[in-house]
């Protein structure tokens, strides 16, 4: 039988575990040897002993482990042990085991060799399996260590537990570097009473050695290890693995695993080996990495926390700022509402509502205490807020709803103050309560020293008995009491609390309340003073028919008079210069008043001379329609100069000059007179002309007839004279009738201005040329068309051209020019004959004025009538020696202007 054949090996390795595999091997050996009984020992080199692994019978206790030095054999050949045949099993020349058989049984050398091989394989295989198992376990480590959400403590403990488990250690410890010493920080499998020392110096014992050298340590037997110190733990250390925990070249601690346990996997020694050490080193590395990660993570977390904190802080700050601003605005609104209130009761209501409402200061309750000056006490007047816990929700909801009806908080306050009745509710609990403020712990400060008193829960607890009555009334531990401070006095106090919400009262709130306290106090003060003031003012007002008022009244009258008024004193200083004076003369009042009269200029010299006569006459001087040229404009003024007398004294201290501008009226009167005269003249002329015409026709007609039958030359010559004169008379009559007629049959058409004028120029061109006069026409390049009565218009131009010709007295040039602007067309007729004397400029347009021997004196009058009355234009003349004489006809383009 061969042990190493396939069937045998298969049988052995099919077994589940090391022991079974050894048992099967032993069975096979027993069969081969034919022995009834068999024992199998494995040699444990470290302990120099043979350990019984398998036996087919009950072996004596002392034979379970056989120290080889107790044997009488050097194990180089079979020997007898306890009467049995003991055969050493070798591998590679070394003893690895021992078989005992019945005394007569043995195995051959070849089988022995085979057994050696198989046993070696089995031992190595077991060791390999143990290694693989540990390596596999190592993979679990990463899963064990969850960096996120793991604290350092947890990490150390977990890793230690893991190391103990993987290395099959009985106990484990982690020591961390403290203040120049090692501190026992984590343990596994150690009970407290087993610990003798928790702190050791660096360098002390194995643990101290590791810390000092920063080297890993493997001790297979502390008995022989000089570094071992056995006074740290009460248990004995048989073997140990220790590793330094190093990060960034700095030792942070030591992990120490002690005493290896028996495990599933058999090995010939019990102590830790190099592989265990390498595992421990590896675990320590992982630990180091995890610590770094956790620290990093923790740092990040912390940074994150810091950031969050920072963000929260700034948000808080913004909210705080917002709240401050909101409160200041609310205060503003409350003050605004107060300003519009005159009733002191409403003032107090507004204050209470403002302090408790949602848009205001949001206090739960506000109690008003009014000062009674005489009794030197504070009297509880009104208390606003929910009366009990049950009312809180509904009261605040309805208050909020009311508030939201108003866009403006101030408006809400005013309206609500008028509406709300504070006599019932919370007020009934406090009404009539009286607090002396002299010597009172709180009110003395508030009223006598105008301080805001903030009663904190702590103050209530410590000094509560000093204001027990108030605490009982309020039923809160925290409240604030603010004075209503005016400039002169303190008018009362308000107590505020947050009974229902418990919101603490902040220092910032106190700051704003201090502003509130003063502002409201001032308002109350001014209201109270106002009432007094009104009374005083009314009586003053009644007394007063004051000079001031009267003066204002007179001043008003002066200013509004439609007459320019100047008041001058004896020193020629102007005392008064009213609005109308400013308008009429263009001098500003501010310049005139207190100035000397000579500021008026030389034009006023005559007027002032007349005015000053009142000093002599002592009576009013009137001048009407005074012709006055000022600033190159003509005025007609009605003037009155009255002496200015002191009241009740007959002394003239100056004069009052009144100027009424009657220029317009005066002009209208002149115009009217002119027109009336002309109308009468026209009518008379017409009558006379008619009366003349009949006899004239007869004279002329019969003279004509006489001429026909006359043979006498002299007679014929006389008749010619009669005919000439009759003709002349007839022209006069015709023109007179023309002028005085009221033509209702004008035929206005849109006519070409240039063409009309050209026709006339053409008509006279030749005739004038024969007389040595040239006529030139300068046409308007715009060639305007105008609404005209063409025949009448031509008559005007003919008249002007003929007049010009007649003025020439011989050779010369007549220039006719047409031109236009936005509003008017113009025709200029110019000649360089003798100029018209200035005093004749106006009269030439009047009827029957003529300088000519053979003129009717009606030509220009007719021209004017046509231009001005029919065409609403204007005819004017400029004349002097240098520039000659120009008649200008100006006719409006716009038909609408003619309607005016």
């Amino acid at each position, binding site marked *: 039988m061969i042990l190493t054949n396939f069937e045998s090996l298969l049988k052995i390795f099919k077994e589940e575990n090391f022991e079974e595999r050894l048992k099967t091997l032993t069975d096979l050996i027993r069969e081969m040897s034919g022995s009834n009984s068999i024992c199998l020992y494995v040699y444990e080199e470290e302990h120099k002993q043979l350990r019984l692994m398998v036996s087919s019978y009950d072996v004596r206790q002392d034979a379970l482990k056989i120290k080889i030095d107790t044997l009488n054999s050097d194990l180089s050949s079979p020997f007898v042990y306890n009467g049995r045949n003991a055969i050493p099993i070798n591998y590679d020349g070394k003893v690895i085991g021992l078989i005992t058989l019945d005394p007569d049984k043995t195995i051959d050398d070849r089988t022995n060799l085979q057994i050696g091989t198989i046993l070696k394989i089995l031992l190595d295989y077991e060791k390999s399996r143990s290694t693989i198992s540990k390596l596999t376990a190592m993979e679990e480590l990463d899963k064990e260590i969850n960096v996120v959400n793991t604290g350092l403590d947890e990490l150390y403990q977990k890793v230690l537990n893991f190391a103990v488990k993987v290395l099959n250690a009985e106990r484990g410890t982690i020591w961390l570097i403290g203040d120049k010493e090692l501190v026992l920080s984590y343990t596994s499998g150690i009970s407290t009473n087993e610990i003798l020392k928790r702190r050791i110096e660096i360098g002390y014992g194995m643990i101290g050695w590791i810390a000092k050298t920063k080297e890993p340590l493997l001790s297979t037997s502390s008995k022989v290890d000089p570094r071992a110190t056995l006074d740290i733990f009460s248990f004995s250390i048989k073997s140990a693995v220790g590793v330094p925990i190093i990060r960034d070249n700095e030792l942070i601690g030591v992990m120490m695993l002690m005493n290896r346990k028996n495990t599933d996997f058999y090995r010939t020694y019990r102590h830790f080996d190099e592989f265990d050490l390498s595992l421990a080193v590896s675990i320590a590395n992982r630990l180091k990495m995890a610590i770094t990660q956790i620290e990093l993570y923790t740092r990040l977390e912390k940074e994150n926390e810091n950031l969050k904190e920072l963000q929260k802080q700034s948000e808080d700050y913004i909210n705080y700022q917002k709240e401050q601003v909101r409160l200041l605005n609310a205060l503003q609104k409350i003050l605004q509402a107060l300003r519009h209130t005159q009733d002191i009761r409403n003032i107090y209501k507004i204050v209470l509502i403002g302090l408790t409402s949602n848009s205001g200061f949001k206090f739960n309750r506000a109690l008003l205490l009014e000062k009674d000056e005489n009794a030197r006490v504070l009297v509880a007047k009104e208390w606003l807020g929910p009366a009990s816990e049950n009312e809180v929700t509904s009261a605040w909801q309805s208050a909020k709803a009311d508030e939201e009806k108003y866009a403006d908080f101030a408006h809400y306050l005013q309206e609500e103050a008028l509406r709300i009745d504070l006599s019932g509710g919370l007020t009934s609990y406090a009404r009539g309560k009286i607090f002396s403020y002299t010597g009172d712990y709180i009110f003395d400060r508030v009223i006598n020293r105008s301080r805001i008193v903030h009663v904190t829960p702590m103050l209530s607890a410590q000094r509560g008995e000093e204001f027990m009555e108030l605490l009982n009334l309020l039923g809160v531990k925290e409240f604030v009491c603010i004075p209503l401070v005016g400039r002169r006095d303190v008018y009362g106090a308000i107590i505020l609390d947050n009974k229902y919400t418990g919101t603490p009262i902040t220092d910032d709130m106190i700051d704003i309340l201090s502003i509130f306290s003063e502002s409201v106090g001032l308002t109350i003060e001014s209201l109270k003073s106002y009432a007094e003031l009104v009374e005083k003012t009314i009586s003053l007002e009644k007394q007063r028919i004051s000079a001031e008022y009267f003066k204002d009244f007179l001043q008003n009258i002066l200013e509004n008079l439609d007459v320019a008024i100047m008041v001058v004193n004896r020193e020629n200083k102007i005392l008064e210069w009213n609005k109308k004076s400013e308008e009429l003369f263009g001098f500003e009042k501010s310049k005139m008043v207190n100035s000397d009269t000579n500021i008026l200029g030389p034009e006023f010299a005559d007027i002032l001379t007349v005015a000053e006569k009142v000093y002599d006459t002592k009576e009013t001087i009137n001048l009407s329609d005074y012709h006055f040229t000022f600033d190159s404009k003509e005025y007609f003024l009605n003037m009155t100069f009255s002496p200015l007398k002191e009241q009740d004294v007959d002394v003239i201290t100056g004069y009052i000059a009144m100027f009424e501008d009657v220029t317009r009226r005066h002009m209208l009167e002149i115009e009217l007179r002119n027109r009336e005269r002309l109308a009468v003249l026209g009518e008379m002329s017409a009558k006379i002309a008619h009366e003349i015409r*009949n*006899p004239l026709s*007869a004279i002329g*007609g019969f003279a004509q*007839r006489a001429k026909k039958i006359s043979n006498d030359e002299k007679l014929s010559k006389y008749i010619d004279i009669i005919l000439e004169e*009759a003709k002349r008379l007839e022209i006069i009559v015709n023109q007179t009738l023309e002028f005085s007629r009221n033509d209702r049959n004008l035929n206005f058409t849109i006519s070409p201005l240039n063409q009309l004028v050209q026709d006339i120029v053409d008509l006279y061109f030749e005739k004038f040329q024969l007389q040595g006069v040239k006529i030139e026409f300068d046409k308007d390049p715009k060639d305007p068309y105008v609404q005209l009565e063409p025949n009448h218009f031509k008559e005007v131009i003919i008249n002007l051209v003929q007049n010009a010709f007649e003025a020439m007295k011989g050779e010369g040039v007549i220039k006719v020019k047409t031109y236009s602007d936005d509003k008017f067309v113009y025709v200029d007729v110019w000649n360089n004959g003798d100029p018209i004397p200035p005093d004749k400029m106006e009269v030439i347009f009047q009827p029957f004025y003529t300088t000519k021997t053979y003129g009717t004196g009606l030509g220009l009058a007719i021209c004017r009538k046509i231009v001005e009355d029919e065409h609403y234009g204007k005819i004017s003349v400029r004349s002097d020696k240098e520039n000659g004489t120009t008649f200008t006809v100006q006719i409006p383009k716009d038909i609408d202007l003619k309607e005016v």
Partner: protein
Amino acid sequence: MKKEGKHILVVEDEEPVRMLIKEELEDEGYKVSTAKNGKEALDFISSQDVDLVTLDIEMPDMNGLEVAGKIRDMKKPVKILILTAYSHYKSDLSSWAADDYIVKSSDMSEMKKKVKELLED
């Protein structure tokens, strides 16, 4: 042109003028009668055939324009020429009965021309 057959009535209150017109027209070969006022004129026209009447306007008893209207009422084929001292009657003519008008003047040629034109129609 047959002037001889034409009969003209000259109505004029002022004698010199009446005489002047009569003589001027007679020189032209017309048969000329005269009337001193409107009444006379109307009586004359109602009893005799007249081809043309020259009417002065300003007359003491009856305005020439009124006379013209009455002549027209007779429905006789009479031409009426108004002689006036006022040029502005022209505008009233269209509503009146006269055929034409002329402003009085010592120069009779205008009148004779008008008379001739009217009688030729």
